[in-house]
């Protein structure tokens, strides 16, 4: 993979060669997606499945069930009602939404073992969640695959927390003290290769794997070019909304509107502004998902 073959970062050579070796020998410690979350994704893709099966499945994981109920009862989804059973929640919110809630809930910082970097990982997860929600709106505006957009947006950067975890663990093994700046540059370098391994091991739909693989180079994504561009555009929107305006490197509204990926999606300025008007809806969905 392109990033992993780039020149070593100065001073980090020993750490890098150990990470390289791990990637090459396929020894990356990919966190187990809580089994129930994987099954939820598969179940909602199975045309034979029904709401009852989904409720049963989520019920088998108390923490997940609790989270789904909290989100289902949030102001966004149930302003005037209190939902008391999972089945009622599914009946109210629909299988697809419930599965999105379940997957978003499963991808949380407790999946990753990165002592000292919890808030960094937390930030990345929030960013991915937001990217997924924006990707859906962008897909809708482009009349492209809305169904896959959330999943691809949510998982496009899943390699980051896993890379962080790997870097910390390798550094510990070789007794290398790593500062946050170096960790981030290494994470940037290795996350894509690792991300592909993660979604492959999690048996995500092929389209998700292709998007993660080609995210940095969507022009070469072949048949997956449009979904990859949509995930990428979702990530640009998330970038804009996540950072504190005025902060260095922050994507301003003006910069967002002229991002090449939006032009490549043939989105004109007024159309981008129309998508931006979805901000309140996306923010409420974000708050609800993090309830």
């Amino acid at each position, binding site marked *: 993979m392109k990033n992993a073959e780039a020149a070593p970062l100065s001073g980090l050579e020993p750490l890098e060669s150990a990470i390289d070796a791990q990637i090459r020998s396929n020894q990356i410690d990919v966190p187990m997606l809580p089994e129930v979350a994987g099954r939820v994704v598969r179940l909602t*893709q199975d*045309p034979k499945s029904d709401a009852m099966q989904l409720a049963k499945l989520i019920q088998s994981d108390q923490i997940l069930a609790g989270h789904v109920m909290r989100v289902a009862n949030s102001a966004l989804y149930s302003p005037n009602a209190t939902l008391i059973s999972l089945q009622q929640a599914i009946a109210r919110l629909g299988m697809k939404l419930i599965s999105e809630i379940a997957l978003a809930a499963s991808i949380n910082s407790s999946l990753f073992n990165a002592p000292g970097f919890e808030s960094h990982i937390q930030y990345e997860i929030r960013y991915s969640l937001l990217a997924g929600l924006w990707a859906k709106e962008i897909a809708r505006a482009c009349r492209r695959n809305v*169904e896959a957009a959330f999943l691809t947006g949510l998982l496009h950067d899943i390699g980051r927390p896993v890379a962080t975890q790997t870097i910390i663990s390798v550094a510990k093994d070789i007794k290398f003290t790593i500062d946050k700046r170096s960790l981030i540059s290494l994470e940037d370098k290795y996350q894509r290769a690792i991300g592909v391994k993660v979604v492959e091991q999690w048996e995500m739909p092929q389209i998700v794997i292709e998007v993660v693989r080609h995210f940095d180079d969507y022009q070469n994504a072949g048949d997956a070019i449009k979904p990859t561009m949509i995930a990428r555009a979702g990530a640009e929107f998330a970038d804009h909304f996540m950072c504190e305006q005025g902060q260095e490197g922050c994507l301003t509204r003006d910069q967002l509107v002229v991002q090449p990926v*939006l032009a490549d999606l043939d989105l004109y300025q007024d159309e981008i502004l129309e998508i931006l008007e979805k901000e309140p809806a996306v923010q409420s969905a974000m708050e609800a998902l993090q309830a």
Partner: protein
Amino acid sequence: MSQTISFDLLVIGSGPAGQKAAVEAARNGASVALIEKTRELGGACVQRGTIPSKTLRENALRVKNMRMNAQIANFKLAEDMELATLINRLSEVLEAHDNYMRKQLQRSGVELIHGRATFVNEREIQVENVSGTKQLYRSQHILIATGSHPRKPDDIPIDHEHLFDSDSILSMLYLPKSLTVLGGGVIASEYASIFQALGVKVTMIDKYPRPLGFLDDDLTDTFISGFHHMGGTWKGNTKITRCFWNGIDAVVTECDDGSVISSDKLLCAAGRVANVKELHIENAGLQLNQRGLISVDDQLQTDVAGIYAAGDVIGPPSLASASMEQGRRAACNALQIETGNMHNTIPAGIYSIPELSSVGLSETQAREKYGDIFVGTARFDEIARGQISGIQNGLLKIVCAKDGKTILGVMIVGEGATELIHIGQMALLNQCSVDFFVETIFNFPTLAEAYRAAALEIIHARKLRA
């Protein structure tokens, strides 16, 4: 904004109409700019309509045939089939088409401009590119070939996720278990039968008693019976009262007869609307007619001299084939290039399963116009090739004038109809007598033989009447 750039002809839209117009004008020595708002060329025809739907159809036919031959190959379509798998060669087809079009435009010296056109006045167009930069272009001759987009009825909440239109239907991730199709026109009939052939449970609903009402009843009957035979449901004379995603697992369609249909997905195919929103045609002194289309005269010129329009933006027949010829002619008329006669005899091709095609007058139209006529029909199950190939659900019909000789129209339903029709079209255009089909030797066994069988029926009836 930099200086205004001038051309002999400005063409807006790179669909079949715009593309053919640009190439024709440039080949005749004019300086031509083709303005297209999307990165890809080809318009609805290439990107979202004709070619993608026909690619899916090709696979649907294969699936249907494999099912029919279940004894030969034990075939079952995977339940969670990704739609992309069924339109598998589309990107290759589109890329090849795009390359071909680009090369052709380049070879002809057409300047391709990627941006969105807006009229400033009757001679000037402003083009805004995707990053917001604007440029002015000027010409004595402008062709509007901006095509059409699906009509979105106010009461159908299309979200491109559960409720689709014909632009977004192929973006579905998985083949649904069930699909409701609203409408009974060409696009509705094509998609309904294609998805049904793929094993999706399709319910087609329309306010009219039959789909494809512009065709004779015996043809639509054959289509409906074929659709039913595959497992589809046709609900005519039915109005939709409400339609929504239930938020759980189904799109619910409530009808005025009290029935409620639940399906995984819904396709709304409620006609098409001219693409003019961004053009601001009022700045050029133009307005839409009552049907929301741009009116043109027989030269394809609009109410404003020098501004021409072609393709879907001027309305029926709204076919890629007709749009190409209209575009070419509009360019010729604008630049005073000799064109030859434009035949009004345009065949209609409906790529449903089974296919339908017609040229000239239908039996109903001919009876309304001339009263006494002759009709000859041949059923494919009576033709050797139809029996051999299992293409038995078909029918060819020739409509002849009162003299029993002059061909007025031909209509066909059954696989191969869209190709077979051209034999009838040529006979019609060359004003051949119906006897010509009997005097001509066709290959045996072929479906084309149906022409001979239908013609014989007319000749026989003519003799009886004489």
